[in-house]
C-alpha cells in the first residue's frame, strides 16, 4: 500500500508524540507513584459504622507511618461525615473513604484528590497538602436529588499565621 511521504512524516511525528506522552505517564505512575485511586480494600457497606476505621470518622494524627494524618470520610446520601476538616499545611495525609449507600464522588476541588466511592469498596489517596486555603469537597458523581447539596470543607491552615 502506497503512503504519501508527508503522511509518513505526519504519522511518525504523531505516533512518536503519543509514545513520549505514554512514557511520561508510565514513569510518573509506576516510578513516581502518582497513581489514581487503585484501592482493593473491600468491606460490607451495610455495616460501615461498625467497621474500623469508619466507626470513627474524622482527622487522626498517626505515628510510625509514611504519612502524618489519616482522614476518614464516610459518604451517604446526601452528606459527608465529617463536615469540616482542618489540617496543618505541609502535612502528608492519607484519605480513606467509603459510602454507606449509592455511588458518590469525593473531589477536593482544585486538587488532584478525586476518587469514586462505591458501595463495598474503600477508596484511598495519599498526598501532601502543600497549599494553605479553604477547599470545598464536592460529590461529583450523581447520587440523587440532593447531589448538589452534598459537600464538606477542608481547611489547610498555616499555623504560623494563626500564632
Amino acid at each position: 500500500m502506497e503512503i504519501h511521504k508527508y503522511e509518513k512524516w505526519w504519522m511518525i511525528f504523531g505516533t512518536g508524540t503519543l509514545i513520549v506522552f505514554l512514557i511520561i505517564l508510565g514513569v510518573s505512575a509506576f516510578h513516581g507513584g502518582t497513581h489514581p485511586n487503585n484501592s482493593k480494600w473491600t468491606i460490607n457497606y451495610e455495616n460501615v459504622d461498625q467497621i474500623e476505621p469508619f466507626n470513627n470518622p474524622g482527622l487522626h494524627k498517626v505515628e510510625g507511618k509514611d504519612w502524618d494524618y489519616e482522614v476518614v470520610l464516610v459518604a451517604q446520601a446526601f452528606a459527608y461525615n465529617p463536615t469540616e476538616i482542618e489540617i496543618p499545611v505541609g502535612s502528608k495525609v492519607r484519605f480513606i473513604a467509603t459510602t454507606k449507600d449509592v455511588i458518590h464522588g469525593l473531589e477536593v476541588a482544585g486538587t488532584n484528590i478525586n476518587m469514586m466511592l462505591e458501595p463495598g469498596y474503600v477508596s484511598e489517596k495519599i498526598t501532601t497538602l502543600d497549599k494553605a486555603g479553604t477547599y470545598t469537597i464536592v460529590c461529583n458523581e450523581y447520587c440523587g436529588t440532593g447531589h448538589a447539596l452534598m459537600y464538606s470543607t477542608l481547611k489547610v491552615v498555616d499555623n504560623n499565621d494563626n500564632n
Partner: protein
Amino acid sequence: MTTTKETVQSTATSSLKKQLEFVDKKDGKLALAYIYVAFIAVFLGGTAGLLQVLVRSGKFELPSFLNYYQVLTVHGVLLGLVLTTFFIMGFQTAAVSRTSGTFTNKQRTIGWVGFWLATIGLVAAAAMVLTNQASVLYTFYAPLKAHWVFYLGLALVVVGSWITGLAQAMRFVQWRKEHKGQSTPLLSFMAVVNNLLWFIATLGVAIEVLFQLIPWSMGLVERVDVLLSRTLFWYFGHALVYFWLLPAYMVWYVVIPKVIGGKIFSESLAKLAFMLFLILSVPVGLHHQFTEPGIDPLWKFIQTVLTFFVVVPSLMTAFSMFATFEMRGRELGAKGVFGWFKKLPWSDSRFLLPFIGMVAFIPGGAGGIVNASYQMNELVHNTIWVTGHFHLTVATAVALTFFGTAFWLIPHLNGRKLTKRANSMANCAGILWAIGMTIMSSAMHIAGLLGAPRRSAYSEYGGSEQAAEWISYQITQAIGGSILFIAILVITGLIIYLGFFAPKGEEEFPVAEVAPGAEKVPAALENFKLWGIIMIAVIIFAYTIPIIDIIQNSPLGSIGYKLW
C-alpha cells in the same frame, strides 16, 4: 445530429445512471423514518439542555413538576443515544442503498423491524423518564434503581439498531457475492465496519442490562455487583463514541471530497483507518474508571496505552482531509502554502457544517488525550471539563456533520431541493452553533479545571468561595447554551421545511470517486474475518483479567435505591 437510436440509448444510460445515483424511494422511506425520529430528539433534547444551563446559572428555577436530574436524563438519553443511533441507522441505510444498491424486499423488511423495535423501546423508556421513574441518567448508575421498563426500552433501542444494521450488512454481502474480487464500495464498507463495532461493543451493555439490571429491578434478584455493572457499561461506553464518530468520518472521507469537486485521497488508507477503529475502539473502556477502586493499576494503564493508539486512525483521517482540500485548491489554481484555503466552497452548507465540526475535533481530540492520561484524569474526572470535552467532539464534530448531512440527505430521499435560502439558513445555524459552543465549551473547560462538578444542579455549596467562582462560568455557559438553542430552533425549522415544504426537485447524494490511477485496495483490508479475529483477541486480552479480578474480589452486592 442525433439519431433516434442514439437518443434512446442515451436515455437508457441516463436512467440507469439515475438508478445508481439515487437511493430507491422505498429504502429512502426507512432512512427518513429514522432521521425524523432523530430530529425530534434534537429538538426535545436541546430544550432540556437549555433548561439545564438556565438552572445552573442560578437565575432560573424549574417548575415543581420537573426535577433537574430528570431533565438531565432526557438530555443524555435523547442526544447521546436517540439522535445518534437513529440518525446513524438512517444515514447508513441510505448510504448502503446508494453505494451497494437497492435493498431486497426481505432486507428492507428486516430494516423496518429494527426501526419499529427501536421506536417502541424508545417510547417505553421515555414514558418511564417522564413519569420520573428513571432519573438515573443514561449511564444508569446502579445501585440507583430505575423501573425495569426503562432498561428494557433502551435494550430494545439497541436490539432494533442491530437488526437494521444486519439488513445493511446483508445488502453489502450480496454486493460482494455479485462482484467477486472487486474493491467494495467505500461508504458501504464503512457502514458495515461501524455496525460490527456497534454489535461487539453493545454486547457489554446488553449483558449488564439483561443479566444484571432487569432481573434486579424486577425484584428477581436482590443485589447487583456495582463495579461489574460499571465495567460492562464502559466496555460499551467508550466504543459508543466511535460508533458516533465513524459516520461523521464517512461523510468526511466520501461525501466532502465530492462536494468540493475533488477525489478520495486514498481508499486504502480510509479502509485501514476504519479497521484500526474496529480493533481499538472497545478495549479502552477502563479509561472511564481510572479513579474507581477495585481495578488493578496495571490494567488501567494497559488500556491507557490502547486508548492512545486509537488516536492513530484519527491522525490519518486529519491528514487525508487536509490533503484532499489542498489538492483540490491547487487544482483550482491556488498559489502559496495556504492559498488553497480560499478556494474551498465556504458558502456551501454541505461543506461548511462538517468543516466546523472538523475544526472542533482538534481541541476536542486533544482534550480527550488529557482525559485518557491515567493519573492526569484525577484533575478532571467528573468535573464539567469532561462535559466541555464531549460537547466539542460529539456535540459539534459529530452533530454538525450530521446536521450538514441531513440538510441534503432529506431532500435527496424525498425528492425535494435544498434551496439557496435553505442553504443560507443552514450556514447560519452552523455559525450560531460554532459561536454558542465556543462560549459554552470554553467556560465548561475552565470551570472544570477549577473543580466544578458535572451532572450537578445549581448549588452554592454553603457559600464556598470556589463555588462562587464556578457560578460566574455557569452564567457564561447559559449564554452559550442559549445561542445553541437558537441554532436548534433554526435547524428544527429547516428539517420541517426540507421534509414537507421545500420545492420538488432532485438533490444530489454526493459520493466521491477514487483518484484516477490509484492502486487497488489490498485484499487483507477487505477481510472482515481477519480483522474481526484481531478485534476479539485484543478485547479478550484487555478485559479478561480485570473482569475475573472484579468478580473474584467482589464485596457484598448492592440493593437498589430510588433517591430522586
